[in-house]
């Protein structure tokens, strides 16, 4: 019986594999290969000519290592390299450090991936809002609509710009949108 089972398995395996040359089998293996060739969607595209995009800029910033780690853990890299346009309110490392102890390690756990993605995408808004753009939002009483559906209020006092309470401490133009560095993680 055992022998038969083994033979059966071997033969079935042969059925499955013997046609490696056929288009259908080739397609199956090619799908896997395609996935390997672009594992992170557009974030896998190599381009050293264009201006840097949001993800590339963030990845090059020593003040945003926690944010980049979180983006990778949430597997949302491709969102930050999308055509956008996108404005990202990018909490610096200090902002993450200011969260209650244990929060970040907890969020980085695989089982909290969805929750982490939700928190991060709350920091991303369609549109390009640089400093002038943010001031205009405040002046005109408009709110910034985020990718999670939240509305963030912009409050300006002279050079002090706050988005949902987080202070904007730097603005960087990137190829696919704007990074506003903020000193706080924006929570609901």
């Amino acid at each position, binding site marked *: *019986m055992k022998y*038969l*089972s083994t*033979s*059966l398995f071997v*033969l*079935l395996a*042969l*059925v499955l594999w*013997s*046609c490696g*040359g*056929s*288009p259908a*089998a*080739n*397609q199956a293996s*090619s*799908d896997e*290969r*395609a996935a390997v*060739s*672009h594992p992170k969607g557009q974030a896998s595209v190599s*381009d050293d*000519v*264009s*201006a840097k*995009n949001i993800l590339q800029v963030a990845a090059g910033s020593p003040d945003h290592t926690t944010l980049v780690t979180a983006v990778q853990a949430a597997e949302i890299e491709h969102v930050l390299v*999308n*055509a*956008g*346009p996108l404005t990202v309110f990018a909490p610096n490392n200090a902002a993450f450090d200011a969260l209650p102890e244990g929060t970040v390690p907890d969020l980085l756990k695989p089982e909290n991936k969805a929750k982490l993605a939700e928190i991060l995408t709350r920091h991303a808004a*369609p*549109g*390009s809002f640089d400093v002038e753009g943010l001031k*205009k939002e405040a002046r005109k009483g408009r709110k910034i609509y985020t990718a999670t559906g939240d509305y963030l209020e912009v409050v300006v006092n002279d050079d002090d710009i706050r988005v949902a309470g987080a202070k904007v401490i730097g603005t960087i133009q990137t*190829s*696919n*949108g704007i990074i506003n560095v903020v000193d706080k993680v924006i929570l609901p």
Partner: protein
Amino acid sequence: MKNQSKFLFYLLSLAALLVTFSCGQGGDAGKGAIGGNAAQRVYVNPGEHDEFYAFISGGFSGQLSVYGLPSGRLFRVIPVFSQDPEKAYGYNEETKPLLNTSFGFVPWDDAHHPDLSQTNGEIDGRWVFINGNNTPRIARISLATFETEEIIELPNSAGNHSSSFVTENTEYVVAGTRFSVPVPQADLPISEYKGKFKGAISFIKVDQESGRMNLDFQIMMPGFNYDLAHPGRGKSHGWMFFTTYNTEEASTLLEVNASQNDKDFIAAINWKMAEELIAKGEFTTMPTEYAHNVYDEATHSATSTIKKEVRVIDPSKYPGLVYLLPTPKSPHGMDVDPTGEYIIGSGKLAASMTAHSFTKMQDAIANKKFDGDAYGIPILNYDDIVGGQVTQAGLGPLHTEFDGEGNAYTTFFISSEVVKWKLGTWEVLDRQPCYYSVGHLMIPGGNSQKPFGKYLVAMNKITKDRYLPTGPELTQSAQLYDISGDKMQLLLDFPTIGEPHYAAGAPADLIKKRQTKIYKLEENMHPYAVKNEKETRVERDGNVVRIYMSTIRSHFAPDNIEGIKVGDKVYFHVTNLEQDYDVPHGISMIGANTSELLIMPGQTETFVWEPKRVGVWPFYCTDFCSALHQEMQGYIRVSPKDSNVKLSWSLDGE
């Protein structure tokens, strides 16, 4: 347990049967002409690249198409001689001058023979050249931008067919006239063709740095029809070979009257000698008119200059410059093998193909063994120069390419097949049918010392039932053969644009690494460019209004303009401020009598709008650029001619 064993046994038997039969489709078990694994051999996995580029002429579309091999996927149609509203080519103000000629703006041509630039006899991936047949022109296309960068018109020519073939180091691109004409043009009875009409062969010098073309000189040949050409290479470098027909010099019913002579000629031109003659001042300067159009990447704009003279050499005055090689029956294809020894002319009405030997030709010349002359040009003796003949290979031989392994491949129009034969032994090795009536064929690098003998593309003239029918007009068809083995194997049919004539192919790696991804904004020298949104503005000078506009995801600046009047001539100068690969923006204006613009990152383009009606008229981005593309729009308020609405512009009300 027993039953279970029996069940397993049956399953086992079934599986064994499956093993035996399941591969009927997958094996090489002789499924007609096409081996069962053809699909696998042309299949390129998602996200992976083809091994070769194929540049296939667009024929009467006037364009050049870019395909991948082996997949047969179409990547781009490069507009060359015809307007292309998709890319605003020939519609925007920047590229209109490219289509200027001495006859004025000619927005169409018949594109025939692409040929790639070479260095040391090998294709180098810098440029591809192609000829416009009808209003004689040669274009140069950059393989960094895949844009037409230059078009030069050819004077004294008509039906620019034996063109645009490149010498071994891209010293020259040559172009021969198909129709002989009075030179200079004159009001003559057509019956006076014989002796009075001339055939101009043009040598266009190519600057090795910029690629810029310059019509260096013309050799004024007898009034034959010059059909095709290929350069000498290796030992025959420095010579250019042209097939001729109608050596009868008929001017009517050529299908009969140009088929009288038993042999026509291959004209062998020693262009190195011509170069020396030019250097020594041995030429006459003839007044003429032709356009030379150049696109400048810095200004993103083309200019057209009308040139007024050309240097001409009379071959009858310079022994050694040109020899005529008798070749049977109206030879069409003109091909030279990778070593440069064999000069192959395919008489389209001949039963056999002739390969002249360059060595024998040199001997005959050295020993002055001539068989008379034609208009002072020595004719060599056929028997002295013939290197070999491929006899009874098929009907209607046209064109030959090479695999670099000592084999040649010739297309036969009438018997509708491609035939593989051996250089030197002249024996036929294999034949495969083409569907139907094949014209040119292409092996990547086939016109060079180093062909890449893996694939062969046959370009067919007749399609009939090969694809889903589309009314009376059908797509043209190419066919891909694997030539890596002893026998050719048909792998794929794929549709092409226009009528493909010749094609040129190159390994993808040679071209991929040269690609321009974006234009640097700081290098943009367009006179109406803006470098940022602060520079955007609208200026009026009489009834001419210039909008200095920018695009960036996902808005135009400005997007609201007032104070435009009926009767104005409004120039939209639009700069794409993006510096990100593959993020063009488009723009179109309701009622504009032109195409959209499609502006690459860092580029400036212009269209003209002449508003005819009072109202508020929208414009919008035509290329899905971003998540907020559908929000990328604007309005222009058009007031009556005598209105005093002030000119103003804004974005977000500011």
